[in-house]
C-alpha cells in the first residue's frame, strides 16, 4: 500500500494533464453535435471526407454516414480520443517500472524489505488505478457533453448505455497497451523515452492493423491492433464483443505473467 500510494502521488501530475486535456476534448467535441446537424455543415463535412483518399478514410474510420444520431456522432469522434487514451496507456505501462531505473531511484526501493513481485504488483495496481481515474474523467466529459446536447427524441438510457459501452471498450484497449508496455519495458531492460516508445507501440500496431483495410488482403493483421477489437462505431451498434474482450484479457494476462517472470529474474539496472 505504501508503494501504491507513492506511485499514485508520482503519477498525479501527468494524470491531471492527460485527464484535463482528454476530458475537455471529449466534452468540447460532443458539444459540436448541434452544429453538425445543420444540413450545410453536414454537406461540407461529407464533401471534405469525400475528398480524402479512400485508404485514409478506411484507415481512420472517417466514413461519416451515421453521425446525425448522437450515439454515432459520439462514437465517431471518440475514436480519436481513443488513440490518445491508448498512447497514454502505453506511456504509463512503459514508464511505470523503467522510470525508477532511469532516474536511479529503484536502488532505494530494492534496498527495502520487499519481494520483487510486490514491487511489480504495487506499480501495476497504481498504473491501473491511474488509467481508470483518467477514463472516469473522460467519461464524465462525454456524459456531460451528451446530456447537454441531447435532442428531445433521443432516449437518455440508450445514449448513456452507448457512451458507457464505448468507454468500456476504450478502457480495455488502453489497458491492453498498458500491460504490453509494462512487459516491453521489462524485456527491453532499459526503456528510456517512454512517450516516444509508447507512440511507436501504438501507431506501429495501428498501422499494421490497418493494412487489411487499405490493401484488402492479409485480413488477420487487423487483430494486431487492440483498437480494432473495440471500434467505437461497432460498439455503439452491437455493444462490446465479449469474445474480443476475452482475447484482450488473455493478452493482458500473458503480458502480466511475462512481466513478473522477467522482473523476478533480471539484474538491477541503475
Amino acid at each position, binding site marked *: 500500500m*505504501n508503494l501504491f500510494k*507513492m506511485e499514485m502521488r*508520482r503519477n498525479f501530475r501527468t494524470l491531471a494533464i492527460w485527464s484535463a486535456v482528454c476530458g475537455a476534448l471529449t466534452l468540447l467535441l460532443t458539444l459540436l453535435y448541434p452544429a453538425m446537424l445543420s444540413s450545410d455543415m453536414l454537406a461540407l463535412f461529407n464533401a471534405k471526407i469525400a475528398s480524402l483518399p479512400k485508404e485514409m478514410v478506411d484507415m481512420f474510420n472517417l466514413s461519416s454516414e451515421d453521425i446525425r444520431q448522437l450515439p454515432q456522432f459520439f462514437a465517431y469522434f471518440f475514436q480519436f480520443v481513443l488513440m490518445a487514451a491508448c498512447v497514454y496507456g502505453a506511456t504509463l505501462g512503459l514508464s511505470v517500472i523503467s522510470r525508477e531505473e532511469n*532516474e*536511479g*531511484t529503484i*536502488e*532505494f526501493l*530494492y*534496498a*527495502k*524489505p*520487499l*519481494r520483487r513481485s*510486490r514491487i511489480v504488483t504495487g506499480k501495476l495496481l497504481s498504473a491501473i488505478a491511474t488509467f481508470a481515474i483518467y477514463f472516469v474523467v473522460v467519461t464524465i466529459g462525454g456524459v456531460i457533453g451528451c446530456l447537454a446536447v441531447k435532442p428531445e427524441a433521443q432516449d437518455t438510457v440508450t445514449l448513456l448505455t452507448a457512451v458507457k459501452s464505448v468507454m468500456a471498450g476504450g478502457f480495455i484497449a488502453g489497458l491492453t497497451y498498458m500491460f504490453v508496455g509494462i512487459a516491453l519495458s521489462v524485456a527491453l531492460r532499459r526503456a528510456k523515452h517512454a512517450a516516444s516508445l509508447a507512440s511507436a507501440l501504438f501507431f506501429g500496431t495501428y498501422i499494421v492493423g490497418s493494412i487489411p483495410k487499405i490493401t484488402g488482403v492479409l485480413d488477420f493483421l487487423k487483430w494486431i491492433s487492440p483498437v480494432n477489437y473495440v471500434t467505437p462505431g461497432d460498439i455503439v451498434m452491437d455493444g462490446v464483443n465479449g469474445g474480443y474482450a476475452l482475447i484482450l484479457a488473455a493478452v493482458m494476462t500473458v503480458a502480466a505473467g511475462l512481466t513478473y517472470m522477467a522482473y523476478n*529474474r533480471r*539484474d*538491477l539496472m*541503475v
Partner: protein
Amino acid sequence: MAVIETENLTKYYGKYRGIDGVSLSVNEGEIYGFIGPNGAGKSTMIKTLLNFLYPTGGSARIFGLNCTTQSHLIKKQTAYVPAETRFYDELTVKDLLDYSGRFYSPKADADEWMLRFDMEPKKKIGQLSTGNKKKVSLAAAMACRPKLLILDEPTSGLDPLVRQTLFEALRELRKDGCTVFLSSHNLDEVQSLCDRVAIIRDGRIADVRTLNDLTMNRAKKVMVTGTKLPEAFDGKTMKLVSHEDGRVVFTYHSGDMAALLKLLAEMEISDFLVEDIALSDIFMSYYTGKEVSQ
C-alpha cells in the same frame, strides 16, 4: 557468528568479470572494511549481496538466509547506503524518510537522525546538495535499526562535522551488536573504524587483515643522513630503498628495536627519522599490485 558468508561468489556480466570466486566471512558486531581500486568489484559484491544482481556462481548468506531467494527477509534487518544517492526529487526530506520508514514494522522513525545530522525536514530532495542527500540516505538507513549496515562510500560529500557524527553513530551501532560492511576509498576512515579489512583486486579477494595485525607488525621506514652509512642490507629484516648523497633510506622489518638502535649507533648521524610505514601505503600496494613493504 558470521553475519555475512560468501563462498566462491561469482558474478559475470556476460563475458565481463564483476567478482570471481569471492569467499569471505563477516562476524557479528564487527566493522568490516572492503577496499579496492575502481572496477575491482566492490559495488558488484554489495549488489550481489543485496540481490540487486543475481550471482553467476557460488553462494551468499546473510543471517544464515540465502541472499538470492530470501533477500526480502534479509532486508528487514539490513540497511544500505549507496555511494550515489538518488531519491524522488519532488518529495520533502520528511516525506521521503516517512515513506522509507513505512516499509518496516514497526515504522522506522527517523526524527532522532534528522536532529543528529542537522537536516531540514521541509526542504525538497531536489534542492539538496550531494552531502545533504547523503545525510538523508544515512538517516533512512539508521532509522530502521539495522542489524547489518552496508555502506558504500558513506562519507563522500559529507563535511568533517557530519563525518564525525557518522563515525560516532557507527561506533554506537557496533556497541549495540550491529555489523557494518564498509566499502570505501577513504583509507583513513577504514583505518580508524574497521576491525578487519578485505582487499579486493580484479574481482578476487587479495587479502583479509585485521587492523590490529597491520598496526602491530608494521615495518619502520628509516631515513638517515650522515657518514659511515651501511652500503648493503640483508634483504630480510632490512631492505634498501635508496642511498644517495649521504642519505640512506631503508625499511626495517623486525620487532627488535635494540638491534635497530645498535645499527644506528654504528653510523655518524647528522639527522635521522624513524616512522611507521603508513597503512595507506600498505593499502596502496594492493591497489597498485606492487609488493607490500611492511
